[in-house]
């Protein structure tokens, strides 16, 4: 666990490097986290995924599976991997301020 400074605020991270406290998250922080993941600009399509992740997490307490993401977020598998190269579920969860998804799928 470590604390980093993002946009002048001290923010605690968990062991996976995701935000420890959901309440630390805001859209500006998301943009900074995205840059760390190599995504320079968050488009409307990125936000669709991020907002969907947050909504499911709020309801269920865990981030959605990649299957749920594919079927219900409005963004299909191919595009998900284009938007979040190197792992859409994991990367979008981090940018959304959520812990790493627990499921295998």
């Amino acid at each position, binding site marked *: 666990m470590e604390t980093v400074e993002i946009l002048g605020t001290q923010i605690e991270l968990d062991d996976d490097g995701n935000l420890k406290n959901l309440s630390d998250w805001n859209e500006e922080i998301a943009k900074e986290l995205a840059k760390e993941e190599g995504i320079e600009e968050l488009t409307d399509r990125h936000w669709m995924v991020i907002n969907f992740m947050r909504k499911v997490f709020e309801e269920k307490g865990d981030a959605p599976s990649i*299957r749920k993401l594919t079927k219900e977020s409005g963004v299909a598998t191919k595009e998900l991997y284009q938007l979040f190269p190197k792992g859409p579920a994991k990367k979008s969860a981090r940018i959304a301020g959520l812990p790493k998804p627990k499921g295998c799928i």
Partner: protein
Amino acid sequence: MAEPIEKVSIVVSHGSLEGVYPGLIMANGARMEGIEATLFFTFFGLDAIIDKRMDKLSVATVGNSAMRMPGGLKMPTILGAIPGMSRFATTMMSKEMEKLDIPPVREFIEMIHDAGGELYACKATVDMFHLEKEDFCEQMDDIITVGDFYEKSAGAQIIFT
């Protein structure tokens, strides 16, 4: 720290439901972690990408000494041969998998393909079973030899299932 895995080549050699899923779950899981994934279907594993068969894979209840009945009691292996037993086990397993958001085979193959995973059929088996390219689902990238498979697996960890 050890070097992270960047590429996996997964061989699927069995055609039963429980023979096919581990390979698919590992391939999809690899893509989710940003790891390149190649699937190579051989022998009865080909059924997972044969258009007319992929929706009808079933659990092998004969000869499976780890088989248990609902409730957890061990199932005498001889019961596995009773007509309808395999269908029953398949329905049960499919239901449980659906609860975990594990998709049916066809949808899973589409997901892995759309995620950038590559799917190949083994040429020796295709010839042996007298199959044609048209027999396969559209996600199948190519029919390749074992030599091609090793070439495509350069730098990958090879996993046999």
